[in-house]
């Protein structure tokens, strides 16, 4: 039980990122506000973390007496978090119109939240999970409220915070119940207990699981725990929104897959039933509510709710003992979702001019003629989000719905696919506004930056390329998911 206690390599990537966060925080004290050194330093640190992550690919390590376990699964998520953070930073960096709009804490907050996520992804114990979750969440609360001049920003942050704390309480209460029922907080032991007892697990454990689902469902914004999401997404500075929509969500799913795709998988019935409902409601509410949104960030918030629905669809009833499809699908979909969402937010950041001045549909009119490249990139991301080939979004959706069909939840898949038609409507409305409507507002100039252009280009190409040749990513995702066993 103690064999992994001293395994430093198991925590190496996390430590690198943690160190980055601390260093950035310290350095920020000594440079003048708005200095470019800080963000670049952050990027370097994160890249180092990424390098370590990649270097460790293929290894499996246990630390902290088995409360911490890394393998392909964790490393996969590490890479995802770090890449999302780097892209977010790049976008922020190149479009920070007024220097110092993003205070020095911003960079370290992002990095700290990445640390939290990494902890979540490596958690093999409820305690570890909760530590990671709270680290990540607290950073996120603050980041949402960074727009100190905008009353909406702090309102959104407060809502996010209050509900987050509320949900955390549920999650913790659930953890307490689980602990009380099984007398351990180790995932592996809880899983073994559940597997041994089958459907007749104690009621307290059921309740614990459900409360845990509530807490994690809140983090990923599954209906009906999604209410904070549109407000917080709209309130937050656009780069933060992008980060929250991708990395935070991915971290939530890192935990959900572990707990509900694995630990609670064989307790099947009840949990699956609940997740079924979560998936259904998320797809319906997310897609339908998005139709009404004229604010793009809000629209993308609801769309992210819908995507959570698709992701949950893959988890429903997917028994990893039978098929890896569900888990693999989630991992793949998270990557695809991250790429296209970051891309979309990237476009918003660029046209927002760093000040979030333009974030409604109308602001997009005439973009195609003013800036064809940007419009094309946005089109690619929207097509991908709609799940139309040849984009990664299509393959992701194909795969997660495939998982649902495979586990016999064809009905859910059908409903999901029908709601995604609604999705097509609002995603394509973006295209309509960019290409088919005359510019309604005089288009304010925005700063182009080579960095963001390249980043956007890379994202767009990746979305297409991985849509046509998804095999490599698919193998990675499969290996990652497999490493959980």
């Amino acid at each position, binding site marked *: 039980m103690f064999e992994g206690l001293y395994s430093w390599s198991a925590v190496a990537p996390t430590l690198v990122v943690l160190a980055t966060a601390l260093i950035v925080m310290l350095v920020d004290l000594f440079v003048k506000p708005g200095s470019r050194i800080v963000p670049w330093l952050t990027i370097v640190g994160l890249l180092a973390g990424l390098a370590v992550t990649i270097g460790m690919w293929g290894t499996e390590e246990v630390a902290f007496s088995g409360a911490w376990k890394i393998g392909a699964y964790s490393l996969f998520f590490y890479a995802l978090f770090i890449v999302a953070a780097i892209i977010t930073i790049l976008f922020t960096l190149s479009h920070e119109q007024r220097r110092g709009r993003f205070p020095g804490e911003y960079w370290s907050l992002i990095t700290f939240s990445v640390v939290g996520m990494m902890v979540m992804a490596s958690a093999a114990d409820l305690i570890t999970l909760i530590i990671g979750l709270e680290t990540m969440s607290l950073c996120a609360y603050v980041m949402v409220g960074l727009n100190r001049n905008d009353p909406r920003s702090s309102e959104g942050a407060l809502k996010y915070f209050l509900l987050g704390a509320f949900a955390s309480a549920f999650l913790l209460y659930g953890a307490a119940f689980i602990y009380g029922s099984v007398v351990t907080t180790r995932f592996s032991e809880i899983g073994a207990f559940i597997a041994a007892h089958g*459907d007749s697990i104690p009621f307290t454990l059921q309740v614990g*699981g459900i*409360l845990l689902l509530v807490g994690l469902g809140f983090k990923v914004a599954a209906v009906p725990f999604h209410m904070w999401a549109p407000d917080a997404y709209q309130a937050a500075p656009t780069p933060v929104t992008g980060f929250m929509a991708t990395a935070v969500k991915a971290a939530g799913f890192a935990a959900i897959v572990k707990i509900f795709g694995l630990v609670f998988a064989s307790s099947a019935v009840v949990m699956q*039933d609940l997740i079924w409902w979560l998936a259904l409601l998320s797809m319906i509410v997310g897609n339908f509510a998005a139709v*009404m949104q004229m604010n793009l960030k809000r629209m993308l918030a609801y769309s992210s709710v819908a995507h959570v629905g698709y992701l949950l669809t893959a988890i429903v009833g997917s028994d990893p003992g039978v098929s890896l499809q569900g888990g693999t699908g989630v991992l793949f979909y998270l990557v695809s979702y991250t790429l296209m969402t970051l891309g979309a937010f990237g476009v918003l950041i660029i046209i927002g001019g760093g000040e979030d001045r333009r974030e409604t549909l109308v602001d997009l009119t005439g973009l195609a003629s003013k800036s064809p490249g940007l419009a094309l990139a946005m089109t690619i991301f929207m097509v991908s989000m709609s799940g139309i080939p040849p984009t990664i979004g299509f393959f992701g959706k194909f795969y997660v719905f495939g998982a649902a069909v495979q586990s016999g939840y064809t009905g859910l898949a059908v409903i999901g696919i029908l709601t995604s038609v609604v999705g097509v*409507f609002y995603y394509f409305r973006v295209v309509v506004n960019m290409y088919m409507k005359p510019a309604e507002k005089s288009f304010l100039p925005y700063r182009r930056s080579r960095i963001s252009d390249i980043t956007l280009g890379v994202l767009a190409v990746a979305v297409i390329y991985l849509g046509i040749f998804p095999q490599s990513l698919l193998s990675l995702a499969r290996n990652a998911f497999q490493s959980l066993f």
Partner: protein
Amino acid sequence: MTTALKLVLLFPLIGVVFGLTFGRRLPEKVVGWISSLCVGAAFVSAVIAVSGFLGLEHGEAGVSVVLFEWIATGPVHIDAALWLDQLSSVMILVVTGVGFLIHVYSIGYMHGDWGFGRFFTWMNLFTFAMLLLVLGDSLAMLFIGWEGVGLCSYLLIGFWFEKDSAADAGRKAFVVNRIGDAAFISGMLALFALFGTLNIQEIIHLSPEVFAVGGSAVTIITLLLFVGATGKSAQIPLHIWLPDAMEGPTPVSALIHAATMVTAGVYLVARMGSIFIMAPTTLAVVALVGALTAIVAGLIGIAQHDIKKVLAYSTVSQLGFMFLALGAGAFAVGIFHLMTHAFFKGLLFLGAGSVIHAMSDKQDMREMGGLRKKLPITHATMVIAGLALAGIPFFSGFFSKDEILYEAWAGPNGHPLFWVLGAIAAVLTGIYIFRLLYLTFWSKSRVPDDIHPHESPKVMTVPLMILAVLAAVGGFIGLPKVLGGGAWIQDFIGTATGAAAHGAEAVGELGAEAAHGGGGLQVILMVVSVLLALTGFWIARRWYGREEPYPEVPEQAVPGLWKAMRQKFYFDEFYFLIIGKPLLKLSEWLYRFFDVKIIDGTVNGAGQVTNTLARWIAGLQVGHVGIYALALAGGAAIRTETGKGLSNG
């Protein structure tokens, strides 16, 4: 001979290609003559082909020339092939012969028209299609020609397309024809389903094995084919297009709407005679429809003032006669009348064209009169044609019409009632044609002062004269046996129409009857029919032989009936009321209500529902953190509850 047969088709086609390429560039004369000569060459080829065919040992029924395989897929094999037998021989000779004359005539008639080249191109195309129709060895080939002539008819009726009436008339002709065609196609499909082929000879050959005489299959199929024929041959109830078709140039009326195309229906029934004869019910229907059409069209014809309209209704009426013959089972006689009709009716139209030409495009007979002296050649030829039409002895029409009336009574499928109907129509024929002659030529001149009628140029009158000769003597090839003739044409065609083959017993019986006692009947009927024609003449003379501006005798005598006749018995109005208007209303309704409101409304409604739902769902997002927390807690509670319930159950 096969080469000659191919050439028959090729020459008009050359004419078409020539017309398409040079029609607008070369001078009128060249275009007109080359086009005409193409048809003339086709005529020569036809003569060669037919004489070649006649020279054959009569072991085989006809000559088949396969051009190429048209459709071959699955069980469907249709060759593009020609079939020359007695029936098609007669037809190609008539089509190319009369066609040639009318082409030549047109050179004069169409002189100066801006669409001169177009006219000849289409006339050539028509000739080609008509030849294909009569030469096709399968119903599919026949149908290609059938629709082809329909197309040309459409184009030529609407030749002066800038006139709304012409453009409308063309469209009407095509659509009404299509109604018949639809039935024709249905019949063809049924035949294919039963026989696995559309080759006419094969069908005829197999029909005794497939059909039972009087069976419902053969009846239905023949009825369908007959409906097709009524469309093309303008029989009630589909006759309404032909009078309107007079909007076309007069040579078109002569060639297409008198001599050739409209007789395609007659040809079709005769061609499929062996099948029709197995369906007595159908034949009765054919005869009745024919007789009825003959009478109705005759009545309408009497009351028309437009010279071409009179002739048009006369054509409808005469086609009715032909169908009467067919219905009586005397297919050969029907074809015989077809041939003589081609001569005299073509001539009448050309004559009318000459008159119209002379009258500076006036067609109203009330403004004519006394043209006998102004247009001597036209007058003479038209009188000959008129006499032939009325059935005055020893003109061509006399022989054929007399035969028809006789067969209507005594034919294989004849009945005295048919004769009575035919007799009535014969009287009407006399009335309208002599009325026409009186009003146009014989009465006092009512020509407006600003018009100075003059005889047409040679290029027009020569064809008139040639046709006049044919109209006068053409009937002698069918001189009945009782008059000492050989009834050569009847026998000749009879072998092809199948009356001889299948109705062998019937024909034999008939022959016997004709030999004994039957001959007496024929003579009696013949005399009666002459009397009928003369009665018609007498009536026309009573009414129109006066020296009055425009005598209105019948108008005053039977005003109600006259008005109905004048208004063509309101067929058009009736159809518009019961078919046209409802259909239009229905279509409008389908579009404006059903398509836009119901179907598209459902589609857009789905969008609306989505929107409403979306508004509703987005409305849940009230912005109040307490409500959010409630949703969260409520969700958790429900979940826990369900969890409990599920774990218990």
